[in-house]
């Protein structure tokens, strides 16, 4: 499903050149649950952004669903992204001015789905995520755990084949964190490919494989048995 070949990302400011990713090559097959770990500044998020089609690499090749994407325009990436990839962020990134329902509905709007189908789909997912009773609330009226549940709902609403989660439990206490991780495991069991970036060894335990980055390079790849 995903394959990178010597993926490189270099950030340039006026005089300083920073190599965030240095010839990273790896492959993820459909249905995998992968955790990317490493210290701050190792390039985890940069890698996730490129995998999530939010950013272009400076060099190397990136294959997503057999398309080579490193030269795609923003518009092309946006089209591919909204159909295939869901995102979960550490700070939830919900739009404060929209209700729970509207936040979750948003990807469907951008996919051009009609209002009736949207409503049915959103309610189905909210029901599934047990947050239906909060659908008219605004994000700031919810607890952190509830907000992240909404964020996960939004990530899965368009039935993406890939979910990228950037420190999904970083702003949550352990109980809520566990809930969210369990949601991701459920999704994975239903066939969705999941990649998470995390500092937390506990979170990484949920994955099937851990990719460790250091200074923009992969240092180890452990295949592990899922804890369950």
């Amino acid at each position, binding site marked *: 499903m995903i394959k990178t070949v010597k993926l490189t990302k270099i950030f340039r400011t006026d005089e300083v050149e920073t190599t965030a990713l240095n010839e990273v090559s790896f492959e993820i097959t459909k249905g995998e649950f992968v955790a990317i770990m490493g210290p701050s500044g190792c390039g985890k*998020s940069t890698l996730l*952004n490129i995998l*999530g089609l*939010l*950013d272009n690499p400076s060099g190397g090749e990136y294959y997503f669903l057999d398309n080579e994407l490193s030269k795609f325009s*923003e*518009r092309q990436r*946006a*089209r591919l*992204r*909204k*159909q295939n990839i869901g*995102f979960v*962020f550490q700070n939830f*990134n*919900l*739009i*404060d*001015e*929209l209700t729970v329902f*509207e936040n979750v509905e*948003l*990807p469907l*709007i*951008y*996919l051009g789905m009609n209002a009736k189908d949207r409503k049915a789909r959103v309610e189905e997912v909210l029901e599934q995520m047990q947050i239906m009773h909060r659908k008219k609330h605004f994000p700031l009226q919810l607890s952190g755990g509830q907000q992240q549940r909404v964020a996960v709902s*939004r990530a899965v609403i368009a039935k993406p084949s890939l979910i990228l989660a950037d420190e999904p439990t970083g702003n949550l206490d352990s109980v809520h964190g566990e809930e969210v991780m369990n949601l991701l495991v459920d999704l994975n069991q239903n066939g969705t490919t999941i990649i998470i970036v995390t500092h937390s060894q506990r979170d990484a335990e949920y994955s099937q494989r851990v990719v460790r980055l250091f200074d923009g390079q992969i240092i180890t790849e452990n295949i592990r048995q899922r804890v369950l």
Partner: protein
Amino acid sequence: MFKNYIKSAYRNIIRNKFYSAINIVGLSIGIIATTFILLYNQNELAYDRHHEKHERIYRLESNFTISGKHDLFAVTSVPLGPAFKLEFPEVEEFVRFAGGDGILIRYGDKEFYEDALFYTDSTIFNVFTHEFIWGDPEKALTEPNTCVFTETLVKKYFGDKNPIGEIITNADNVDFKITGVIKDLPENSHLKYNGLFSIATLSERIGRERFNSFEPGAFWNIGSYTYILLKENSSIENVFEKFPQFYEKYMKSIGDQINASFQVMATPLADIHLTSSLSADQPTGNKAYVYIFSFVALFILLIAAINYMNMATARSANRAKEVGIRKVLGAFRSQLMRQFLSESVILAIIAFVIAIAAVYLLLPDFNEIAGKNLVFGFSSTPFILLEIFVITIIIGLISGSYPAFYLSSFIPVKVLKGKINVGRKGGLLRKILVVFQFIISITMIIGTIVVSKQLDFLKTKDLGFEKENVIVVGVQDTAFIKKTPTFREELLQNPNIANVSTSTGVPGNIRQIIVMRVEKDEKISTPAEISDSLKVSNVDTTGNTDTTTFQTGSSMVEHALNLIMIDYDYINLYNIEITEGRNFDREMGTDLEEGVIINEATARELGWTDVPLGKKIDFGIDLDGSARRHTKVIGVVKDFHYLSLHNKIDPLLMFLSDRPRFFLSIRIDENNQRQALDYIEKKWNEFGNINPFDYDFLDKTMDEMYEAEENIGRIFRIACVLSIFIALLGLLGLSSFIAEQRTKEIGIRKVLGASVESILKILYKEFFILIIIALIIASPVAWWILDDWLNTNFIYSTTIGWFSFVLAGLLALVIGLLTISYHIVKAATTNPVDSIMCE
């Protein structure tokens, strides 16, 4: 999708009440101002367009060239219209109007002086469009002694009853039968008549033959407005082309005799109001003001739009996250741009709704300020409403364009990580926009100051005579005119009456121009003529007044000059200064026939500045070349403003008459006005004047000559206050944002030991510099515009003066800095711990 935009726009407006309010108030005011100005301009531009045939109607006008000088008049001679119809197949019909103001109308015990009554041809209703309430337009003015009144005038005399067939009487006890009643003329008609008398009346009185005469002399005597209706598909150019033959046939013989020529001019009916500026014209508008007001409206809207742009981009930090998320979720940039544009458009539409309601409520006040009678509504002005709506949408799009462009450009990876300091970016552009707003505001402040200064100048300038405490009474009763000397004596018995004088004109109303024969200017003559004229002067000073020498000799030339007939007391009453020679003197029996007093402008124009006294002027030139009076200059008065300050002081001759008609000027005691007026009225009636005692204070009448400027000044003042207010709203929003944004910087500075004063200094300095830059740019722009305004509209004007600029700058600075103080002082005095923690 669009519903989603509206929802998000609505929530954003509600959530940011402070900024939304600033934007909505600003835009509403902008739209209100624009609506009023559009209404005003449309009214100005629609003058006389209610006449169905207006595209084929032209007013004929006169261009006389006498002694090489052009004199342009809105009036023409009586036979010109009929002769045009006769000679030019292009002309389908003509209508003439002769008459004017202050005409007495009597019905039963009701009698009033009426303005704007005209003798006119019965063809008027074929040419102009009038709605008849009673009467038949075909027959209404065909007979002598018939008249058609407007609804309002009829109401005044007859109430609600049908007045057809009723008889009214004028000052000369001539009866008129009412044969028609028309609806009142629309307010935007350049020639506003309240009543029309059949021209057949005049023709009957003067004698049909004489009235309808095509004698050459008749064409040189102007006094009536003439309108022609061209046939379909005819062009006025064709008429102009053939005019030389017409001139040759009807007018040339006299022209050659008096050394003058005549050229006809014509103005399309609908253009008269805004383009005409001829002598003897009806009050007209000014196209320049239509343009100026349009710009003012545009600028007010721009200021409001800039507020939106500034605040939207300044507050972009708050929107950045949303943009990032939407993009991650698959929004295209174009979709986000559409979203932000819909937000600004929705805001503009809210402002539109508020503004339209406000316009309804404020329209009566605006009408009062502008001196108009405008209407506004869905049914009455649907087109204007649509225009305003379109303008609203455009302003919404303009306001939203930059924020949409800017906000949608955020890169999600960066904004979601908080990596770019959004809001700081675009700081330079915001500063430029603020400077632009202040350039407009300061220009308007300077404009307002100078306009006020000019109005003040017009009202307080020393006019060269005393206009205060003089009442002017029109005198029409011929029997009474004969008694004026005794009437005068009687009035002077009262200690509250200082002086009484009769004349053919009073300041502000001296408009008679006549061709005279004057002694030739020795300065601009050829050497041979100089010796000739010197010889003549010698003859003159030796007392040899052989007038035939001057008539036949080359030393006299024709010259068109203004004149007024006055009595012995006029110059004293008005306190006009005599610089050389003397006033008319009752002791000198010859003054009546042989004396003339000139103003300095006459001496200058005729080149008599060295020795004006004794120079000869022949007055009352007949067609055979003989003169009724051979006069000599006995006095020179200092130039005084006998017309409004729009006109330069032209030469004026003052001849003596023992009983000049029309105007009675009475100087009364300032402190006992009531007693004086009561006494005059009592005597007026005692002397058996058949007309009511109706007076005006001269100073008030003269002030009214500047009503147009007064209206303009008022509109300008309001526009200025509005634009500054909107700009200040923007400044308030921006200062709030800047204070918010620099909270951390201020906190750190304070931790490091900065005093509140030093922080205030930093914050104020930023705005101070912006306003100063605006002042520096605005000053020359304002100077250029105002200098042009003063020069093109006034012969006599105030100086713009550096003080206006200093005052405008100070005003902008003070109110600008005061506005930002609230947020800035709050930011500077915040406890540093709070401000650092809030990051």
